[in-house]
């Protein structure tokens, strides 16, 4: 459990703190921009439906899911029965079930903040945590924690500000949510270059597009995640030959440097 602390002690503590904060900030920056704006959009919707800033704050703190929060407002306005809301929430957010796999050990290192890290785990934060492994002179536990704080803070701030000032916004920011798409594209590129096998990415392309074309934009995400999980299990021996699996690090998806099986 303490191996992280061990190699950090080789570096001066203040330098580690500064580098850790800088990396957490740099990783969070594009997310914070996107969250401020999408949160703001959610805040405006809440304001237009008679909610106050503290309702938006509560939602942003506890739900912390853009797709559900934005789908939720018109449903609440239409007085959708609560059981239907529950089923809709499940369908919209079912993808989160898959995010925790691979982070159970990592988040436990947060101690008291372990439950918080589980709750504050939306798409974009999952993306950062699955991206480039941290360099050695960065404290991974604090870097994870600060990244989570900054992103969540931006999401809450955006939602509250949108509810308070949404009706007086002087400029048009349409399209800035492309930043989230761009961030995932960057992570895909990084993974393409660092994964020993490209099959996991190809599995994602195939199952994602297949399910999108068959099922349409509203229902494709859960089936495509299940399909890629099954495909990954079927292809296990090709993606990760037995010799490679022993050497890979615990960092999700990080390449061990060994050139495994597939060209």
């Amino acid at each position, binding site marked *: 459990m303490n191996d992280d602390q061990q190699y950090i002690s080789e570096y001066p503590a203040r330098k580690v703190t500064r580098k850790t904060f800088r990396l957490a900030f740099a990783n969070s920056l594009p997310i914070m921009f996107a969250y401020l704006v999408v949160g703001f959009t959610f805040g405006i919707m809440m304001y237009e439906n008679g909610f106050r800033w503290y309702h938006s704050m509560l939602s942003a703190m506890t739900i912390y899911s853009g797709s559900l929060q934005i789908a939720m407002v018109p449903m609440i306005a239409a007085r959708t029965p609560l059981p239907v809301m529950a089923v809709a929430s499940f369908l919209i957010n079912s993808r989160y079930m898959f995010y925790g796999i691979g982070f159970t050990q990592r988040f436990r290192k947060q101690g008291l903040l372990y439950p918080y890290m589980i709750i504050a785990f939306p798409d974009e934060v999952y993306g950062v945590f699955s991206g480039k492994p941290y360099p050695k002179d960065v404290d991974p536990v604090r870097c994870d924690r600060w990244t989570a704080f900054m992103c969540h803070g931006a999401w809450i701030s955006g939602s509250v500000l949108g509810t308070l000032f949404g009706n007086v916004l002087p400029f048009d920011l349409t399209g800035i949510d492309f930043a989230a798409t*761009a961030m995932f594209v960057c992570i895909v590129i990084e993974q393409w270059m660092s994964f020993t096998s490209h099959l996991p990415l190809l599995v994602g392309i195939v199952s994602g597009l297949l399910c999108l074309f068959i099922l349409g934009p509203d229902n494709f995400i859960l089936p495509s*995640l299940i399909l890629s999980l099954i495909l990954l299990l079927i292809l296990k021996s090709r993606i990760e030959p037995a010799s490679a699996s022993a050497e890979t690090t615990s960092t999700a998806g990080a390449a061990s440097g060994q050139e495994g099986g597939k060209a």
Partner: protein
Amino acid sequence: MSPTADFYGIAAIAVCAIVTMGIRSLPFLVFRGDKLPEKIEYLGRMLPGSIMVILVIFCLRNTDIHARPYGLPELVCVVLCAFLQKKLRNSIPSIAISTLCYMVIIRMLG
């Protein structure tokens, strides 16, 4: 006019929050042991690769490729972002430049 922010409204927010928290906790509740099963550990390493691609598709899922501008702004900016990231290996400029281009392009076409 009765606002939506009555008891029902708060209860609806609570339902969404509880369901979402439950979904997020699920893998952490199921895989509690100190040593994960080998298959799960393998999935934990490989699944992000598949999920990131699916998330890109998820972000672009509502792009209409049958009507003007046929998803061209999205395609151009995704390719631009991928190219920049491959060249620079630094996501801040890749994200900033491609997002700015996207915002400019949709304004020129709209």
